[in-house]
């Protein structure tokens, strides 16, 4: 049985599309986990959810307009919404969480409506379903998509490393950072832009409804076990990559949908980390 799986796996792994899918999956999982720690700690977990729905809306517009390079429309719209959401969080005329909920459901409804009215495809439900929950389409990634994803991921990781100390300062205590002269607003903006980029990249991969899971689960799992910012960040990145790999391999072998399989693995990892943390904490206390 195991030999059979192994044979099947090594057969699949020889295919270029499968290799591409694995590379893209790992990179997206890595980026999402790096920024996830900051988002969870800043109480911005929901921004990922909101933005992914905006990206869905933008994608339907791109589909209706019949654009070949949908990314060039989706990316700017999502980044713009990220900046807008962050601004509303600050001046609080409409409270941050309400603004996110409003934009998020609005974009979702608008996107579905557009797709319905200008229906060009024969299988609308299937199209919508695969945009929301991800699909096997990860195996039909075009070379240009793969390259774009690789380049964007490298940029995200470099930005994260260069600004790591500033991100920490702004996350831990924004007022202190501002008062002592750190340009906190600029770094908040940077975080928003980067998270928008990650979400757009991840949309093809796990689907727009499940992106938040990639952002939130690894960070929460790591926070159960580790006690410094650096170790939480590193562990959540490692865990996220492992979960993505395991999830993708399972989905290849068992023929399950990629996105939901990865999220299921992430959730299982969280349960394990939670229990381990509880046992360790229990002994210590």
């Amino acid at each position, binding site marked *: 049985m195991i030999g059979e799986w192994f044979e099947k796996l090594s057969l699949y792994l020889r295919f270029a599309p499968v290799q591409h899918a694995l590379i893209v999956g790992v990179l997206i999982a890595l980026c999402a986990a790096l920024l996830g720690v900051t988002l969870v700690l800043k109480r911005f977990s929901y921004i990922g959810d909101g933005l992914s729905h905006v990206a869905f809306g933008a994608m339907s517009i791109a589909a209706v307009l019949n654009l070949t390079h949908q990314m060039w429309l989706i990316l700017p719209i999502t980044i713009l919404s990220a900046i807008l959401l962050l601004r509303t969080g600050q001046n609080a005329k409409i409270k941050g969480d309400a603004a996110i909920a409003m934009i998020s459901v609005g974009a979702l409804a608008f996107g579905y409506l557009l797709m319905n009215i200008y229906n060009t495809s024969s299988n609308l439900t299937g199209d919508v379903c695969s945009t929301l929950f991800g699909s096997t389409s990860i195996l039909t990634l075009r070379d240009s998509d793969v390259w774009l994803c690789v380049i964007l991921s490298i940029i995200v990781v470099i930005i994260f*490393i260069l600004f790591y100390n*500033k991100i920490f*300062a702004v996350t*831990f205590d924004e*007022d202190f950072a501002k008062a002592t002269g750190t340009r906190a607003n600029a770094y908040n903006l940077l975080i928003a832009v980067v998270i928008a980029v990650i979400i757009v990249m991840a949309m093809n991969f796990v689907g727009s409804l499940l992106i938040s899971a990639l952002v939130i689960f690894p960070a929460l799992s790591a926070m159960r076990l580790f*006690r*410094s910012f*650096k170790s939480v960040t590193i562990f959540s990145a490692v865990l996220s990559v492992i979960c993505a790999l395991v999830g993708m391999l399972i989905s290849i072998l068992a023929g399950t949908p990629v996105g939901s399989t990865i999220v299921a693995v992430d959730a299982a990892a969280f349960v394990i980390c939670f229990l381990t943390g509880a046992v360790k904490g229990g002994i210590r206390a």
Partner: protein
Amino acid sequence: MALLTVQNLSLGYDNRTIVADLNFVVNQGDYLCIVGENGSGKSTLMKTLLHLQAPVGGTILTGDGLKKNEIGYLPQQTMVQKDFPASVREIVLSGCQARRGLRPFYSREDKELVEENLKRLHIEDLAKRCYRELSGGQQQRVLLARALCATRKVLLLDEPVSGLDPKVTAEMYEMITQLNREGITIIMITHDIAAAAAYASHILHIGSTVFYGTKKEYLASDLGKFFLKITEGGDAQ
């Protein structure tokens, strides 16, 4: 020239004024306590001094070579920090952040400054501990060490003893006084008027009536006598 000169300052939100026409100066080595009832605008004043909020009117001048980002700040604890996974050293190091400008990593001098300030506040053995597992008093010392990394001149403290037990409160005041003796200018917001009367060199009382002067002048004024009496009455109950 004084470190800080505040002229005709009016504070408030959305152009609604809470306090009008504040005038006071802070000189090198002063220990200024800002007292007043809840809602009198103490925290707003603090935010304005830190440039987190624009004043409704008036000016704040800095002098004696004090730069805008050379004010150390001990804020009240936020919800975010209560379960934040970070080691003490990481937090204290972040006090050096502003001076780094766009340079991405901390220098050796920054790290030495951190060790020095950990020793100064007697928390060097906590350096590797997780912030959220410390006691309230220890957490305040960590944030104080961070503030000392950001400044060599002025510390702004926002209710530094709120939520601490009497013994730790006394230690905290002792530590702040010690820092003041070492030459650091202290500006402290507190509603503990008795402590202000015990430790401060100058007192700014804001509220329906505004008073600014030395501690002696305050204790001699009707306002000072009145409030000290209320506090003592409150303690006796």
